[in-house]
């Protein structure tokens, strides 16, 4: 009986052990099957899906720019035999291996229609008259008009030439005209300066790229009148009328590129930071070119800007010297007088000095009322504004005459040039932004990507693809619009405040957090599993021994 009790105890014990083993196994199973996935899921950061593959495609940007050209021959330039094949169209493609840029020039040749002939011959059409006048002068080969036409005078063609020879002779000159009126390779490379190595860029285009303000959705233009001596001069300037008639037409033309807001102010007792020197030879005060760079800083502190917007500001200052330092002239680096009496600083704005000492005599009652001649002032400011906004100095080849844009502010072909370089710049910037954002989000696994960011990124990618397609097709206006949308969306996505990477945990900190939580729980489970395994091994060894 004692043995029976012992056996029963032993069986109960082994049952107990069996139950214990099952319990340990069950707990381990629950921890592994349920616990670990649950922990993983709940500590995961929410990351909305981003089109990474499309973004990496955008990285290798292959831009193709298309230009449509129409060459019109007036009557008498070609023999009827040469004219047989007209209208003729010809496509010329140029490719630059290094930058992935392709230019397509689609040229159509035709003879002038009757209306065009009449327009050319009519003496009263002012433009035609002027242009013919200019062309009849000796050295002028090409006259580029205000809109998108240019008149080219070429040496007469031999009637024995075939059409091919005629066209190939013309090619060089047509190419020159096209590169002046649309874009040159240097301009496009300068617009892509972020992505492309600057080694191959000429000094002029680098200076242009540093002078012109970066593409931005909006700009603020501020006109300031600085009156350091209100006791002597009481200045009146009709800035509203001047802006309406002189500056606003230019801004309206540039409306597809950016939004502009214009304001003006008058600052009293604002002095230049530099003391001008009196020059006896002209009995006037002069500012040398070297001291000009120190003029801006003391004034800038007082200029102020619109606190609500973060748009870049272009300042145009009109400085009327005080009566003790009048007249004040600016000298350039070779000590010569500057006719405009104005200077500008890249990406900042311009300053013009307006002398009023001739408008009153010494006996006039102080303060003297002075009306400022806004036409002269606006002429200078308009020229500076064009430079600031990126309407580059074109350096046309010799023999080219460019018609001055006058009150419109901007010739159509100048606008086209700006649109080309802006579209390319916007596309380049937007694609760099998107690719760097994708890289950033890929690298840092802890950043939360909200739905709105994913949506902005997707819309930026689709806009970019549309913009590139429109550039290929040659629709400049649409390309610019899509590129603007792309840049807005990409900037909004990149600068979203929620993307702040404050979740940087070094690995040792991660261990320090998880070990006190998980180690006490895992130790009994692991030990019991080990015990089960070792017992199973022992039993198998016993069975083996028994069976032997």
């Amino acid at each position, binding site marked *: 009986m004692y043995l029976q009790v012992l056996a029963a105890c032993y069986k109960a014990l082994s049952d107990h052990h069996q139950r214990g083993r099952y319990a340990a196994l069950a707990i381990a199973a629950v921890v592994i099957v349920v616990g670990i996935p649950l922990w993983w899921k709940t500590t995961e950061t929410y990351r909305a899906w981003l089109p990474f593959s499309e973004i990496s495609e955008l990285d290798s940007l292959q831009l193709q720019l298309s230009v449509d050209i129409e060459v019109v021959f007036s009557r008498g330039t070609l023999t009827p035999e040469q004219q047989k094949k007209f209208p003729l169209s010809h496509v010329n493609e140029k490719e630059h291996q290094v930058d992935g840029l392709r230019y397509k020039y689609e040229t159509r040749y035709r003879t002038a229609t009757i209306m065009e002939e009449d327009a050319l011959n009519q003496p009263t059409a002012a433009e035609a008259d002027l242009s013919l006048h200019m062309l009849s002068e000796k050295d002028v080969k090409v006259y580029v008009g205000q809109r998108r036409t240019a008149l080219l005078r070429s040496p007469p063609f031999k009637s024995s030439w075939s059409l091919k020879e005629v066209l190939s002779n013309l090619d060089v000159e047509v190419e020159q005209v096209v590169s002046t009126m649309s874009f040159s390779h240097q301009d496009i490379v300068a617009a892509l300066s972020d992505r492309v190595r600057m080694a191959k860029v000429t000094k002029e285009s680098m200076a242009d790229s540093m002078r012109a303000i*970066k593409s931005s959705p909006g700009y603020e233009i501020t006109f300031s009148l600085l009156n350091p001596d209100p006791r002597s001069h009481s200045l009146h300037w009709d800035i509203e009328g001047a802006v309406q008639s002189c500056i606003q037409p230019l801004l309206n033309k540039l409306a597809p590129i950016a939004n502009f807001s214009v304001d003006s102010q008058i600052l009293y007792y604002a002095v230049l930071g530099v003391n001008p020197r009196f020059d006896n030879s002209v009995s006037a005060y002069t500012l040398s070119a070297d001291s000009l760079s120190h003029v801006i800083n003391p004034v800038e502190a007082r200029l102020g800007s619109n606190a609500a917007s973060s748009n870049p500001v272009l300042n145009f200052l009109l400085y009327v010297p005080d009566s003790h330092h009048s007249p004040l002239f600016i000298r350039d680096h070779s000590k010569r007088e500057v006719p405009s009496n104005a200077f500008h600083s890249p990406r*900042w704005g311009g300053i013009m000095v307006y002398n009023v000492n001739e408008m009153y005599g010494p006996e006039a009652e102080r303060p003297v009322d002075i009306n400022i001649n806004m036409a002269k002032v606006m002429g200078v400011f*308009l*020229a500076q504004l064009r430079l600031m906004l990126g309407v580059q100095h074109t350096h046309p080849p010799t023999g080219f005459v460019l018609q001055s844009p006058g009150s419109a502010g901007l010739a159509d072909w100048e606008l086209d040039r700006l649109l080309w370089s802006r579209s390319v710049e916007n596309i380049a910037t937007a694609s760099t932004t998107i690719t760097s954002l994708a890289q950033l989000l890929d690298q840092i696994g802890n950043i939360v990507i909200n739905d709105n960011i994913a949506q902005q990124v997707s819309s930026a990618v689709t806009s970019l693809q549309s913009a590139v397609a429109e550039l290929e097709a040659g629709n400049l206006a649409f390309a610019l619009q899509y590129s603007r949308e792309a840049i807005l969306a990409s900037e909004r996505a990149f600068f979203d405040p929620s993307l702040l990477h404050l979740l940087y945990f070094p690995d040792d900190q991660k261990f320090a957090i998880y070990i006190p939580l998980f180690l006490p729980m895992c130790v009994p489970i692991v030990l019991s599993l080990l015990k089960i395994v070792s017992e199973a091994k022992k039993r198998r060894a016993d069975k083996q021994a028994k069976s032997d």
Partner: protein
Amino acid sequence: MSHDFLQMHLKAVISCLLIFLYKVHTTKAGQFFSSGHTNNWAVLVCTSRFWFNYRHVANTLSVYRSVKRLGIPDSHIVLMLADDMACNYRNPKPATVFSHKNMELNVYGDDVEVDYRGYEVTVENFLRVLTGRLPPSTPRSKRLLSDDRSNILIYLTGHGGNGFLKFQDSEEISNMELADAFEQMWQKRRYNELLFIIDTCQGASMYERFYSPNLMALASSQVGEDSLSHQPDLAIGVHLMDKYTFYLLEFLEEVHPASQANMNDLFKVCPQSQCVSTPGHRTDLFQRDPGSVLITDFFGSVRKVEITKDTINLTSPVEPPIQRSGSGDIQIESLTYVDQLPVAEIIHQKPKQKDWHPPDGFILGLWTLILLVFFQTYGIKHLKHIF
């Protein structure tokens, strides 16, 4: 053999000549291409709070003062001060922050513009300013609106350690986070060149991890060394400046907007004999040679200027403005202030009767306590002996 020698000699001469010509060409190149920047920004941060960290605020304000003196306007400076020393209750000379003992130099002045003050100086705000990820309602003065042609000066001071900098005595920024922030700035082309100066203990550890191009860094001490403070002022009762920034300020006081001092001079500021710690610098990520970088490229704001050669002839005349006569016929109604303060009434007013208020909590509590003690001592049944 002699032929080879001659050939080699000739090659050497030619290459020397070419190098000489190249050098002449680059020195003749305009100011435009020597530095490539068109505007300057400065981000100056003091990360310490409490009165005994007076010297960190004085450090930052000294650099602020130098930077303003050399031309950077307030609109281009983001100044973050974690505590207000000038109006601190313990300041025996209110509205001043001195940087020299015997109160020689007041760096607070009367035109200090602090953009982030007090508890707004956090790691999050600092990183947001650098990367530009600020909420849309942030005003312009609190933003770093730099572009790809901006040179930025970043100055940090406070208490730091190996690989981190302490903000407000409660949080830290690590060197990895700083390096990542600079990389994001580079990706978005928010700077042309960046000069990073840090004056903390073990400051060199903060620039170890930088990996973006066009960065130059200076620190006041190496890893394992402490940056020491300079002199205490017995009247104010705290140390006024740190040694490194004190000698940096001394150096900068000699720089004026047209000076040609370069970065090599800056590296020599505060050698170990003066600073006790060894200042360090890092230039391997910088493209240009430090000897050709002017101090004013970062600390000042020398503008590139071009003469306007072309003007546009406006053919349509602008309407002339209305002629105003000198005496001013236009009568503008004289404006008066509305009578908001009827002073005559106030002067002759009688003092108002104050309404009666029941006694407040403290008095009530005190009475209750006294009553309780009384009843505890004497018991309720003894009440009839009293009343």
